């Protein structure tokens, strides 16, 4: 026996909305998603004329190869030489490759005592089950220290280029960012609600299990950064700026890098001076094992996640 439902209440039910959407009579999301008009900011007539005239004049200068003899010769020569150089390079490289030891053999020169020791004693000496992690964070830690500073310095250059400092500039950046950009997109928000928590959890898992299996600070940090970017896209800057601003980034990345440098200075110093390190290696396979590697992975993860997120924000808006 079916009960009669009043018309208004029926209209609010999901099934009715779904049916309406299916038949195409009504878009349930219409009016709930805010969207800027998709057109460029207005431009006064003279400005436009002047711009066009300038561009035409410039195009005529740049691409007028008929009259610009020098340029034509230079362009041709440049192209010919570049192509010749590339072909020469590839041929030379192929020759070198044909001379290299054959692919995939165990007795090649690269598989020497160094790799052997990493595999055979790595577990004992570093405590990491994942030999690659043990290698990059313990045996060859100096490279990795440099590498995380490459990321840091790249963020600094991006900040120099894209950060907008003044009030006026920031407003301009915000306006520019809102062009073509839907706000409160329901589909995206629902998807993000479902996806973001598992993505972040997965990233944390990759970081924490870096010494136990494939993964590590860098890949985990990138996954977390991607999760944050998705969250930002769905919910907008107002939400993310409550917990993540430029200040947070500066402080966390400074703390993480300082912690990394200090930890590595300690181990370099003790190593070079033949002092026994006091940090226990723990049982291989346990989560709290392999000495400093877990700490270092967390530091790298924090830096990388912040960096990826900062790249994205700087590209979009130029400040947060």
């Amino acid at each position, binding site marked *: 026996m079916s009960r009669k439902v009043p018309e208004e209440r029926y209209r609010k039910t999901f099934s009715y909305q779904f049916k309406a959407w299916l038949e195409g009579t009504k878009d349930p999301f219409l009016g709930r998603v805010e969207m800027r008009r998709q057109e460029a900011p207005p431009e006064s007539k003279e400005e436009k004329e002047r711009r066009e005239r300038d561009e035409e004049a410039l195009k005529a200068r740049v691409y007028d190869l008929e009259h610009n003899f020098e340029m034509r010769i230079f362009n041709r020569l440049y192209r010919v030489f570049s192509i010749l150089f590339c072909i020469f390079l590839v041929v030379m490289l192929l020759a*070198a490759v044909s001379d290299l*030891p054959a692919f995939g053999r165990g007795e090649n020169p690269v598989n020497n005592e160094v790799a052997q020791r990493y595999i055979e004693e790595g577990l004992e000496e570093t405590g990491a089950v994942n030999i690659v992690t043990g290698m990059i964070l313990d045996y060859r830690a100096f490279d990795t220290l440099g590498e995380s500073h490459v990321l840091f310095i790249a963020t600094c250059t991006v900040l120099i280029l894209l950060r907008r400092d003044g009030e006026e500039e920031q407003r301009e950046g915000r306006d520019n960012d809102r062009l073509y950009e839907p706000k409160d997109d329901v589909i995206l928000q629902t998807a993000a609600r479902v996806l973001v928590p598992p993505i972040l959890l997965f990233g944390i898992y990759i970081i924490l299990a870096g010494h136990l299996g494939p993964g590590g600070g860098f890949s985990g940090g990138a996954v977390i950064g991607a999760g944050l970017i998705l969250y930002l896209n769905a919910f907008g800057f107002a939400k993310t700026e409550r917990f993540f601003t430029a200040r947070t980034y500066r402080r966390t990345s400074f703390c993480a890098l300082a912690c990394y440098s200090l930890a590595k200075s300690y181990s370099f110093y003790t190593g070079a001076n033949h002092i026994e390190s006091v940090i226990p290696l723990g049982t291989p396979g346990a989560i709290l094992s392999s000495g400093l590697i877990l700490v270092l992975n967390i530091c790298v993860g924090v830096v990388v996640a912040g960096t990826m997120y900062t790249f994205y924000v700087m590209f979009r808006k130029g400040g947060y």
Partner: protein
Amino acid sequence: MAFVQNFPFMSILLSLFSGPLCSVLDGKWARRVNTAVIAVIGIMSAFVLKHVSAGQPYVYRMGHFSAPWGNEIRVGTLEAFMACFFCAVMLLCMLGGIRERAAQIEEGKQNLYYVMVNLLLCSLLALIYTNDLFTAYVFVEINTISACGLIMIRQTGRTFEAATRYMIMSLLGSGLLLLGICHLYAVTGHLLMSNIKEQVQVITATGRYHISLMVALGLMSVGLAIKSALYPFHAWLPDAYGYSTLSSSAILSSLVSKGYIFLLIKIFYRVVGIQAVRESKVVNVLFVFGIAGMIMGSLSAIKEENLKRMIAYSSVAQIGYIYMGLGLATDAGAIASLYHVLSHAATKSLLFVAAAGLAQASGGSDRYGDITGAGFRNRLAGVAFTVGSLSMVGMPVFSGFISKLLFARAAVGHAHKMLPTVIALAVSTILNAVYFMKTVIRIYTIRPVEPGREGENPGSGGTGRQSRGGIGAVSAIEVAEAEILPKETGRTVRLLEEPAKAAALVCFILLNLILGLNSDPIVRLIQGGIEMFE
């Protein structure tokens, strides 16, 4: 192990740590930290130099694992001396450009500049000391990125264009360098320089993998040559040096490319072995392009109207000298190149700082027409510029003379390369004299009264302002800017108006004189250092 032996490792870590530290400080404190760090590292390197020159070179392992398993740094007299010298030059460059930095860098981004400088210093130290090729690659990248930051921190369209060109060229170079390292790793199975050298000797004895070895050597040399702006790859250099802020131009021209050159010398001596290098054809390529750079760089400099750009083109020529010396592939050639690295670093930064002083006395413009008589208006800068020019031309008493002498001496007795080297030296000296003496005469000429010139604008100096309109808007703003600029085309700059710059200039002149008059111990030191490489 003596405590002094920890100093190289400490200086690398200290400069590395000070990078992130400066990012959380404000501009003023970042500057203090930066100055302190450079000074402390310079002093530490001096102690290391004292320690090493008394004893043997030593290897310092980074971590608990020795030779082929862990990272290492290696310290000899040459490394310690280079570190000390680079710190001194960098400190002076930073001192000389304080006023320009304050004017040309946005207030909120001052501290980022010091981040760049600290990490640049760190990468230079690591390139000097490292004993591991892959570490060298990582720090080469840090060097590249921080140099790019130094170029574009003064935000104008020209610096962005220059930075983009610089990055493209550098990335080509790093790609080739990394590929070369990979090839070398594929045939030797090691990444540490000393182990690679052992393996290379074994391989050469058996005669296997000859092509791969040569290709690897070629890739690494060409990659590093591209990165240090050897002649046909120099297109980014004039803009990058000419339009960036003063400290940046001075540091870029005197230090950044020198780090790569030092790495290349290390690869020649400590990785492949100078014997194998001499037998390969790669050095001939470097030799030919070096000579081409010497001539073409000077020719472009003669045509140039802008003082800073002229000095930048002269850098192309000087890099040519260095590669010509390396192309000789003899110990004497390498010594001459290393000496020229020192002399060029001391002289070129002196010239840049002096040129800024001259421009300051000419209404901020460094165009040729405007600096007439500037030597009278800013006396110290005039004297400094003259000293730098004479040194570049190769006048006795100054450092440039010694390096030219060493180049000539290295060429004498070389089977095929003697004649081209000597001719190139002679031609390039004449060309150098043409454009440097032209400038010196110009700055000591009293300006004739030109009624026509009064109305013109004195060039687009001053702070390059960023604008966001179309091109029309850009040109409109630049015209407006030129109108706002004071019409004064010259004013007298007193000696103590900027004590830091004056001190930097005096120190640079002294450094030049020391290198010129007291060259014997330094040459002996370099020679000893190269012998220690073996």
